[in-house]
């Protein structure tokens, strides 16, 4: 096996362009995914049977089928129907970019909804009762206590989900997008340097994962500050003059 390292340098700019698209796909669909996941998770955590059942089917479908099928369904499947092609949605569905975003968002929403549901259910009842006992209404409780707490609890697991989404985004290459994998495939298709390109793409993926992991560590540190809080007394305690026992506070 002879390796042609030169081609990696030659095509690096195109790989990096692909990496940028990959990042964009992950970021945009991640944000849309959370926006969808939160109401779904709240519905799943509800006591009402019907409210619970609806998202169940949605989640079951998206967790039980391959992402590749979902992407093809959105990209090639939807365009089979004239109604869709003539609808106002078409300008969006026409773009492979948005089809990928739609498929990834729906997919990650299903997984994240389950994560958030279990986080919501992990909040100690007492903390919610405390909110109720001070007279908070339902929406205030959700906004001020349930969601911030659930988000903090779910954060580490959600970090994993984002990594999984990063890896799943490679499937965008199957619907003509030149994401990192798409770029690697297209380049190697004409230069016949598969291993070199996949190796380079792999290294970039690992670097992006490391970036995401670092980002989540940081977010967790910021968001779950209370777990990392080191007791530092208020500045006046640090002021030696004020610590003098003779000074009456």
């Amino acid at each position, binding site marked *: 096996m002879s390796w042609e390292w030169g081609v990696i340098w030659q095509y690096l700019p195109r790989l990096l362009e692909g990496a940028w698209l990959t990042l964009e796909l992950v970021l945009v669909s991640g944000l849309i995914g959370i926006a969808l996941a939160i109401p779904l998770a709240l519905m799943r955590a509800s006591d009402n049977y019907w409210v619970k059942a609806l998202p169940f089917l949605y989640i079951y479908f998206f967790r039980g089928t391959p992402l590749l099928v979902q992407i093809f369904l959105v990209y090639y499947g939807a365009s089979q129907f004239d109604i869709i092609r003539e609808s106002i949605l078409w300008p969006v569905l026409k773009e492979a970019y948005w089809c990928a975003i739609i498929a990834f968002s729906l997919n990650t929403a299903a997984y994240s909804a389950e994560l958030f549901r279990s986080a919501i259910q992990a909040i100690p009842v007492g903390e919610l009762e*405390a909110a109720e006992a001070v007279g908070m209404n339902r929406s205030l409780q959700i906004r001020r206590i349930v969601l911030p707490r659930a988000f903090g609890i779910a954060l580490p697991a959600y970090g994993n989900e984002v990594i999984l989404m990063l890896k799943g985004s490679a499937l965008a290459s199957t619907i003509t997008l030149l994401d990192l994998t798409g770029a690697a495939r297209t380049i190697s298709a004409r230069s016949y340097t598969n291993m070199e390109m996949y190796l380079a793409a792999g290294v970039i993926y690992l670097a992006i994962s490391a970036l995401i992991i670092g980002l989540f560590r940081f977010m967790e540190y910021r968001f779950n500050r209370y777990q990392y809080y080191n007791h530092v007394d208020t500045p006046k305690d640090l002021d030696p003059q004020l610590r003098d026992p003779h000074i009456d506070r």
Partner: protein
Amino acid sequence: MASAQTALELKDIHKSFGDLKVLKGVSLTANDGDVISILGSSGSGKSTLLRCINLLENPSQGQILVGQEELQLKPGKDGNLIAANRKQLEQMRSRIGFVFQSFNLWPHKTILENIIEAPVQVLKQPKAEAIARAEQLLEKVGLADKRNAYPDNLSGGQKQRVAIARTLAMDPQVLLFDEPTSALDPELVNEVLAVMKGLADEGRTMLIVTHEMRFARDVSSQVVFLHEGQIEEMGPPEQMFNNPKSQRVQDFMSSHR
């Protein structure tokens, strides 16, 4: 303070869990400034009674009045009474303070944030004002230096004192305490009891479920003894502790010195 003003009135409260009848008609009136201790053996329904007052538990039957205002109730799906008007319930809850046995502080907020949360969000107090008030309260419970700490960094006794400050920040008409010291080490109990004694001295209306006999005797204006979901006997502490009428209360008192 007009001493005959009614702060809280419960009329014939019943509560069942499935087939288990836990409360079987409890009526009770607390006037402004009353400190009522509720005693009773485990399982007698003390916690349930307290939780029914602000509808953390839905009673099966009965009436609840805070001040002169009656809490509007309607039958719910499971046969228990639920609030007919959520707005009124929320408004009433904001006037009843509840201090939990297990504190239930919000761990993702600092001490100060825990205290100002409800005044700002529920009472719509301006934030600066709420902070000023919170600082006074922290001073009062002896925790002024912990304002920026998180609940996880506090000892049990400190947590319970913050929980009390959080409740006081709403300036409630009535304070309900459910065994506020029983989750604490003996050494920490005194911290919290001292704060509660201070509140009693200020003339706050309080209902306290407790196993601290000494505290009940020294601080209460009334002692209520609950037995199998009913009030077995009630009266001023001297009478309840020194010569209770009921045999049940006598037994309880003699085993709990």
